């Protein structure tokens, strides 16, 4: 019964994309609740943890860096270690790389400005959030620090293990070299965790999920996650 699938949206001080994350999770059939960063445990039977966009802790030090000391983090790590689904969007992706749950780092956009615009994405790694997605998705980005970096060995591992979840591309699905922000190999999203159960991506699927948004490609990710959970592929 899909209505029982519980999703927890972690709210850090400075999170600002939690409302649309909650809304979209509910549209996809999740029982979505928010969790305060000072809590030390997730709600019972949480199946998916979402780290929303925003400027957690004001982006002081580095984007996402201070979350390392957040009281809720051990519970999120444990959930991921059990194979539970974790989705980090935008600042959530930055947090996942800062706390070491995903490899690589996100740095200042190549053109040094905040960028809010529509991009094309193509799924390039099979996993719980990308199964059954079309070849291209139109999604918005809104970030100043979305330039993905990783060292050579890490990139080789990501490519080799099919962990590059999404790349920026053109309307025909041809991957772009750097994307809108200068990302290495046009990487927009990365899988991690023991069973590709952790996904971080810079674009905002939760902001392109309804007729009102002018498109609903983003909801497909959440639908895919729901299908995964229903089939019991995740822990």
């Amino acid at each position, binding site marked *: 019964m899909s209505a029982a699938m519980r999703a927890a949206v972690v709210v850090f001080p400075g999170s600002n*994309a939690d409302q649309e994350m909650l809304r979209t999770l509910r549209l996809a059939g999740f029982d979505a609740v928010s969790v305060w960063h000072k809590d030390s445990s997730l709600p019972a039977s949480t199946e998916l943890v979402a780290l929303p966009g925003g*400027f957690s802790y004001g982006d002081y030090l580095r984007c996402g860096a201070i979350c390392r000391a957040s009281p809720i983090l051990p519970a999120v790590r444990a959930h991921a270690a059990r194979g539970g689904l974790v989705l980090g969007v935008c600042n959530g992706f930055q947090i996942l790389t800062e706390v070491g749950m995903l490899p690589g780092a996100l740095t200042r956009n190549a053109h040094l400005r*905040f960028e809010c615009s529509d991009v094309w994405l193509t799924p390039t790694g099979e996993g719980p959030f990308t199964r059954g997605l079309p070849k291209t998705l139109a999604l918005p980005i*809104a970030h100043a620090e979305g330039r993905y970096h990783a060292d050579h060995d890490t990139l080789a591992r990501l490519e080799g293990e099919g962990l590059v979840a999404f790349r920026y591309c053109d309307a025909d699905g041809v991957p772009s070299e750097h994307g809108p922000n200068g990302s290495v190999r046009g990487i927009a999203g990365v899988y991690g965790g023991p069973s590709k159960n952790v996904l971080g991506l810079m674009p905002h699927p939760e*902001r392109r*999920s309804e007729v009102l948004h002018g498109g609903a490609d983003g909801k497909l990710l959440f639908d895919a996650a729901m299908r995964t959970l229903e089939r019991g592929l995740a822990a």
Partner: protein
Amino acid sequence: MSRSAPLPFPGDPELSPAVWRQHKITPSEQETVLRVLGREPTFAELGVFSVMWSEHCSYKSSRVHLSRLPTTGPKVVQGPGENAGAVDIGDGFCAVFKMESHNHPSFIEPYQGAATGVGGILRDVFTMGARPIALLDSLRFGRPEHPRTPELLRGVVAGIGGYGNCIGVPTVGGEVVFDARYDGNILVNAFACGVCASDRIFYGRASGVGNSIIYVGARTGRDGIHGATMASDEFSASGPSQRPTVQVGDPFMEKLLLEACLEIFAADVLEGVQDMGAAGLTSSSVEMASRAGGGLRLDLDLVPRRAKKLTPYEILLSESQERMLMVAKPGKEAKVLEICKKWDLDVAVIGEVTGDGRWVVTATPGFDPLDDEQVTTSPVIVCDLPVAELTDSAPRYDRPRAPDPTLPARHAFDPASLPAPTDLSRELLELIGTPNVGSKRWVHRQYDSIVRGGTAAGPGVGDAAVVRAPCERDGVVIDKLLAFTSDGNGRFVELDPYTGGAMIIAEVCRNLVVTGAEPLGITDCLNFGNPENPVVMEQLARAIDGMAAACRALGVPIVSGNVSLYNDTDGRPILPTPTCAGVGQLGAIEDLVPSTFAGEGDVVVLLGDANAACLGGSEWLRHRTGDTTGDPPKLDLDAEARLQRLCLSLARGRLARSMHDVADGGLLVALAECSALRPDAPGARVSLELPADAHGRAARLFGEDPTRVVASVRPGELAAVREAARVEGVPLTVLGETGGARLVVTSGGAAIVDVTVAAIVEHRERALEPIVGAG
């Protein structure tokens, strides 16, 4: 009362005539101060009078004219006088909104000036208890080739984005205009709108004798001291840097403050709340006491601070950002403190409400909480002022007025004296590629216009932005769809202040109705030059009259606003720029009408006068002459009201596939934009009956007469649209048909304009390149 009169604080300067002058208090205002007090003020009290009686806080030159604006109506929940205005949006909810200028600080320090402008207007809205859901920014810069324009544009846009993106309120629109008349005085007007339950609006009232006054948020530093007085000052090209008077913003702190405040409001533990904006602790506390008709007592020793050795004068006048003043209900202080702790905010009880009508401030000489030194002195009274006189005895001026003596010669300018335009395709592409007419995408993409996931129409794609606003009461959420737009064409106000003022209101409302939204209310930001200049005063007074007439004709009230005067450099005023932002409401997402053509084979029609041909004051004329000149268009308010009723009924009847207002650049630019504002919109082939002479054609194509809308309708629904137009008495002219990838305009069978949509898009998109470069 056995209270002794306030005494000078150690280190206070003597109040010499020069000190009075530095505080911009005129000799006659000085007399009033002395009469009200019956004694010399202390230095701190002088500072208080200086800011409270500044133009910025007291509206002393504009108040007599502002009273003529219509501010009431069936939808008005809260008119001017509070932190923001509010209009009813149904089901017991209201939209709370205001626009405010941050012009002077933004010129001195563009990033921080613009950022704190956004922070300030957001506080005005959430202070009322409303969750902010949208921001607009109306910007004016100097001419594109002015050496400071690139730096100012970059800084202001980055500052707006830096604040709005971080706090997480979408910036969904606004305008950007360049004109040499803003070379020395840019305009940064920020608008915010929030939503709340109408019976849970919070007011800035310090009521209930004995209630605690609580300070929440950022600690007090020395930033922004005398910002309010600076805002009432002219610039000089050779003037000294005023950088220390610019505040520094921290959007993360404000995000915490916003969430904490909304949580405190929901707990129902407050009597009143007021943000500390211009003139900081002084203005907020005096206003709170004034609205409640009481007094209060503040102990400055208790004020959280981040700078050492602050004097009472500095604490009272600091404009440190992200601070709120709250009055708790009896016995509820603990709850306020608890919620602030949850959000890691500094909080302190710093005084209490009194009933004696006095504003009394104490401080201990030598005491500094940041210092370990033991202080043996006792607290002393540093201010003891009558609240009523501080606000009510503020000076009011009905300043002399005189018409602009340059106008007759400028009205007489004949566009036919210019070389005849021959290649109209080239004229179109050139005009649509100018910074004023072209795309502002370089700006908009730096704003997070989609945060919170409610944006249905963002910046740059239409006449108004549309945002879904979730309205919550006791856990039940009802979604509302609100539309936002801003306008403020200073060219027409300069050439005819009355009609120009009316045209701005008309355009704001037109932008809303063509989007499918019913206009609910307007907020204004009146940016003008030095009011001591009779020509400026005439512009201000007549523009207000024109705005008032248009508001009445269209049935839309002005519910909040602000006035920014002294926008002069070396005696030369800016273009008179009353910026107005309108809030409208859609019934359903299907009411939203795009500006761009929606598909192939639709009929393109013009609603309004098909023969309008007035080039006076147009962008085309400015582009050609470099000047704001010519006899400006007239506005028939009755025809405007009928057109707007028609547009709204077409939208609600789902009869319009697209509607776009004819504005900057005139009819030809409007047609081109219908194909270019959104990707994948089709071109069109239209036929106009134009005069044979080149100047006559230019006037028809580039004239900016108001009260015109380009619409597209399905062929099968043309008859119904015609009938609707006939009922409202609005002229309807079939212009042509949508389709293809070109815009072709014929007259008498010959193509006079033939351009590809791709060329239009390319020229539009490169419009800001001369200022900010490519990429």
